[in-house]
């Protein structure tokens, strides 16, 4: 036939340009044909145009032809005309209104196949106006027609309700009575319609809850019936219908004890007797589980459902494992203990090849972390981190940090975990977590020496991971004195000179891999070290002065300020760049537990405040200010 010839020609084009040329010629011919009233090849012409449209070329000039074809008395022309309408027209185009009349006429055509075309098209692209216009027709067809038409009318009604929920009222009476039909297509359509009516208007729930016994009967019939060749799929009788009935039962049983009670036995029966060796059976079981978990079911039934999900986790079929985890994720908060029983299998899924399965397993694993299992779970999560696909890494690091913070069994463990993540996946740790990590490290005071040594050693081998760089720089700046002292309890000693430290910080400052934030951290660390080292102050002074003319404005500003600290405000430098406490206005005392740094007498309140603000802004140190000067209040900065 003619369109096949055209398709052949198009397919033999060797380049995109050649194809375009062919299409242009063909479209010109089609357009010319449209203009003639030739009745012989009209269907073929439109078919050609639809093919061209599918290749992605414009075809709007065919819209009116669709309208004309739909109005034709010939079935072949109507058939392609309606198809064209569904492909080329949508409710946004004015032309779609023009077919409303044809649809109306065809809905009462003597041939059910023509009625079918109209119903299909209305359900596919009927606008709100068309729906409003034709709703009474559809309602009539729901009641007084054969099964072939009834089932289509039901789905058409579904579309109408989606477009104009208020029209649902029109279909509510008929919907319920459709449930007594024996035809599976009609039943399926009825169930879908009732589902839509209930979802659009919760006021319908009470009415349709009366249908629960009928729905239960329908399911029972399907589950216990013998082999029915017409509806059998892999040993399950009409799984499509079963799934929709189960879904409707879920909506009806939700928040309603009576309805939930009425379906309890059935759900147990389906859950126990459905063979899940093939997808069809698993689909039914899956829907059953969703229903059990969403209605007011007995606890025994809930456990049964979770166990089904647990079994799914062990299924060879990856799709089923994935589905299982999606469902477990939904119930992990409400049924935490039940899901915990399957933790081992879930953790195993972290090793699955498929990234979607891995993602699900990660979510679930994080949700299952508790004080009781934190140590073993963290081992698994850190192991996962080392082979984790790139797109999951930053989520994994955030999840690990959260879990660590919530359930850390000891400070040492917590710090070790933070260090491990920074060192192995520091490039994927989100920037926003850095201040929090710094906070956690600064609070673990006995571990400062250990922490700074570990971070320093990680830094000298790799300065590319920005979050690691930032945290490490902050620690080096803050605890540089501990680093330079060389020895530390838990690590083999390593000689670190002032030059070594300044070398690595300067390397970071100069490296093109370093982000602006990281460079800021490095510069500040260098500056802080000016109060912790003895021999290299001049080196620091010169670094700081060089960066006073740096292109990066943030860095430049910082350097300029630091320069000023060296020059005009040297007396303030120690205060600002050192850590911990500033105690102002009282003489040194041995009885306080704080590290006392200096006494500043005769400073104006403005001076003191600017030191405090400066320190807070630039050094991110934790410090406490205690002022005895009466005009300034106690304040605590962190």
């Amino acid at each position, binding site marked *: 036939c003619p369109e096949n010839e055209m398709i052949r020609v198009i397919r033999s084009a060797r380049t995109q340009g050649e194809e375009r040329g062919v299409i242009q010629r063909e479209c010109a011919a089609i357009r010319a044909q449209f203009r003639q009233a030739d009745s012989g090849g009209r269907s073929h012409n439109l078919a050609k145009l639809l093919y061209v449209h599918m290749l992605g070329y414009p075809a709007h000039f065919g819209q009116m032809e669709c309208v004309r074809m739909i109005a034709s008395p010939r*079935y072949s022309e109507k*058939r392609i005309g309606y*198809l064209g309408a569904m492909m080329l027209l949508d409710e946004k185009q004015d032309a779609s209104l023009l077919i409303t009349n044809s649809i109306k006429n065809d809905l009462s055509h003597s041939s059910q*196949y023509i009625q*079918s075309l109209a119903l299909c098209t209305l359900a596919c692209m009927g606008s709100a106006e068309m729906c409003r216009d034709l709703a009474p027709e559809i309602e009539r067809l729901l009641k007084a027609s054969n099964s072939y038409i009834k089932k289509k009318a039901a789905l058409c009604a579904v579309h109408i309700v989606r477009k104009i929920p208020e029209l649902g009222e029109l279909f509510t009476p008929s919907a319920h009575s459709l449930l007594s039909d024996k035809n599976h297509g009609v039943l*399926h359509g009825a169930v879908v319609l009732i589902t839509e009516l209930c979802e659009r208007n919760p006021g319908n729930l009470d009415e349709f809850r009366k249908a629960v016994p009928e729905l239960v009967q329908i399911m029972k019939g399907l589950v216990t019936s013998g082999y029915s060749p017409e509806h059998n799929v892999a040993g399950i009788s009409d799984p499509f219908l079963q*799934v929709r009935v189960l879904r409707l039962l879920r909506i009806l049983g939700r928040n309603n004890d009576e309805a939930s009670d009425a379906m309890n036995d059935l759900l147990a029966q389906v859950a126990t007797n459905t063979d899940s060796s093939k997808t069809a059976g698993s*689909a039914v079981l899956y829907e059953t589980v969703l229903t059990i978990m969403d209605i007011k079911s007995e606890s025994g039934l809930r456990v049964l459902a979770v166990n089904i999900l647990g079994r799914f986790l062990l299924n060879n079929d990856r799709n089923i494992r994935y589905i299982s985890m999606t469902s477990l994720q939904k119930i992990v908060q409400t049924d935490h203990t039940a899901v915990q029983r399957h933790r081992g299998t879930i953790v195993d899924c972290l090793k699955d090849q498929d990234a979607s399965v891995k993602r699900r397993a990660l979510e679930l694993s994080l949700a299952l972390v508790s004080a009781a299992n934190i140590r073993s779970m963290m081992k698994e999560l850190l192991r996962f981190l080392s082979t984790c696909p790139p797109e999951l890494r930053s989520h994994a690091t955030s999840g690990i940090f959260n879990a660590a913070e919530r359930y850390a069994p000891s400070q040492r463990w917590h710090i070790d975990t933070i260090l491990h993540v920074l060192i192995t996946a520091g490039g994927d740790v989100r920037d926003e977590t850095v201040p929090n990590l710094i906070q956690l490290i600064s609070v673990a005071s006995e571990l400062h020496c250990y922490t700074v040594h570990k971070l320093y050693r990680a830094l000298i081998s790799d300065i590319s991971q920005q979050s690691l760089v930032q945290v490490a720089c902050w620690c080096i700046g803050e605890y540089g004195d501990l680093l330079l002292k060389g020895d530390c309890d838990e690590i083999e000693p390593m000689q670190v000179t002032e030059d070594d430290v300044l070398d690595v910080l300067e390397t970071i400052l100069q490296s093109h891999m370093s982000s602006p934030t990281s460079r800021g951290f490095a510069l500040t660390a260098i500056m802080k070290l000016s109060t912790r080292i003895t021999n290299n102050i001049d080196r620091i002074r010169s670094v700081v002065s060089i960066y006073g003319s740096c292109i990066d404005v943030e860095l430049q500003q910082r350097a300029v300020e630091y320069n000023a600290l060296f020059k005009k405000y040297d007396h303030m430098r120690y205060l600002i760049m050192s850590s911990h406490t500033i105690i102002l206005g009282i003489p040194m005392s041995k009885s306080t537990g704080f590290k006392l740094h200096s006494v500043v007498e005769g400073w104006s309140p403005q001076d003191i405040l600017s030191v405090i603000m400066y320190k807070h802004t630039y050094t991110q140190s934790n410090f406490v200010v205690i002022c005895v000067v009466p005009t300034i209040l106690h304040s605590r900065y962190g």
Partner: protein
Amino acid sequence: MMRFMLLFSRQGKLRLQKWYTATAERDKKKMVRELMQVVLARKPKMCSFLEWRDLKIVYKRYASLYFCCAVEEQDNELITLEVIHRFVELLDKYFGSVCELDIIFNFEKAYFILDEFLMGGEIQDTSKKGVLKAIEQADLLQEEDESPRSVLEEMGLA
């Protein structure tokens, strides 16, 4: 409900697209391009489900064609796989061992079959036999309609 179904080849050629919600032409093109890229990048052993925008995508490859459906949050992915499989069975029965070329050269037939099986993104008839019978009858009607008519028939006298 199913929002749309796409059939495309490994080379990214679209063979069928059925949309069950009103979508602007340019948005359709964009979504198709994006989704084809995502699906074609999947490796063979990966799972048939993925999340894309606010939808769930269920896809399966049959020979050289990818069958790809977008469904909503509350839809059952496993039964959607069965829906895809049923559609393939229908095509197979109709064309007799269907292959991509059948879908290319008889694309309207593929649409007619789909439109007899699904409507508004939902299943019309859960019986394979039922759908095939209806298509057969409709085809007969089309044949009668297209066969040459005698003058008497044209005048409605025979």
